[in-house]
């Protein structure tokens, strides 16, 4: 899998925050929770960006205890999963997380025993929504037409798929009508 060090979307994905719990007291780390010169108490619950949480969650200290434990963010919580299973087209993914599927991929590695269900639901959701996206891109129903709400809720990779399908349809139409 190609590493994406310079990929802007990969960097923005890692900026998304997830709920964490500190398992250990850490002097001088209060600033992570907004109080600058305090210490970080074990048991504190806070949100940390993925680029930080994913390393702290796997760095052991004594024995098998890690510095923090992580839980699924609201965007991947059970109620959202149920809504996606019920009708994937009705959920505004952009409000939940701009890089929604990428967030899902990162969390699959971080949270045990969630991955089977998470992967299943996300892959079904992604497939069904991208088919709808392609339809909209090929025969647009006008800006305020039916489905525009769906399009407003597309997360970042879905937007890029819409643009790819839309631009290709436009290029095809342009080629067919231009003088050969």
């Amino acid at each position, binding site marked *: 899998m190609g590493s994406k060090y310079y990929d*802007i*979307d990969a960097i923005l994905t890692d900026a998304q925050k997830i709920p964490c719990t500190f398992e250990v007291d850490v002097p001088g780390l209060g600033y*992570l929770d907004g109080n600058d010169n305090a210490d970080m108490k074990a048991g504190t619950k806070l949100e940390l960006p993925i680029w930080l949480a994913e390393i*702290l969650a796997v*760095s052991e200290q004594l024995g098998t205890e890690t510095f923090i434990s992580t839980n699924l963010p609201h965007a991947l919580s059970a109620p959202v999963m149920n809504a996606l299973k019920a009708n994937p087209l009705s959920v505004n993914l952009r409000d939940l997380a701009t890089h929604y599927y990428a967030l899902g991929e990162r969390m699959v590695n971080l949270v045990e025993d969630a991955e089977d269900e998470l992967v299943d639901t996300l892959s079904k959701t992604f497939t069904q929504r991208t088919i709808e996206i392609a339809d909209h891109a090929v025969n647009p129903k006008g800006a305020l037409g039916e489905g525009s709400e769906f399009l407003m809720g597309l997360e970042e990779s879905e937007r890029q798929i819409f643009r790819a399908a839309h631009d290709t349809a436009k290029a095809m139409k342009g080629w067919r009508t231009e003088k050969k």
Partner: protein
Amino acid sequence: MYGELGNKLVIHAKRTQALSQLPPYQTDIVRAVTREVRDLNQDINEITNSYEGDFNPSADPARACALLVHHLCVRRNKRCLLAYHRVRSEKIEQMCWNGMDIMEQVQAARVGEGEEESGGSSHALSPEEDEYARQYGDMLAAYKGQWTDIDLTGSLEPPKDLFIDVRVLKDAGEIQTEYGAITLSKNSQFFVRQGDVERLIKQGFLQKLN
């Protein structure tokens, strides 16, 4: 929280990718993020130096965690800075490949974009980017020099209608073509290379027929 400034820079980079012109360089944010890295690095040194002997992470996990957090913040800021500069350098390279003279391109950016938030000097490129643009332009010229017959910065669209039929609407005097001079007298028709007459068509002397 550490890393917030880095994110701001990456959001600028994301917006830059969608723009045709290069927006102003975010000097202030770049400096602030660099300062944040230096401060973090000082904290790291203070923590490690506070140990007489060598630092044993498992002996003091809390201190190890603090160190790790600082390290990760530094790495994160470095990645944001590199990505921001890389996106801009790609835009500069695109301009060179499109044969645009960087300076005139930049004037247009200043007029078109106006000043986004502060922090951007009136001139879109930073001094270091100016230098990069010049050096990349020279390197590109050297690479192109090995393909003179091809003109590497030419069009990337398949060629169409290299030669076209035109009718003369208004007397346009004589023009030079590869096949000798042609006198463009009113109502006469010619089969000429499009490149030779594009300007005259735009000025309404000639009309393209198909």
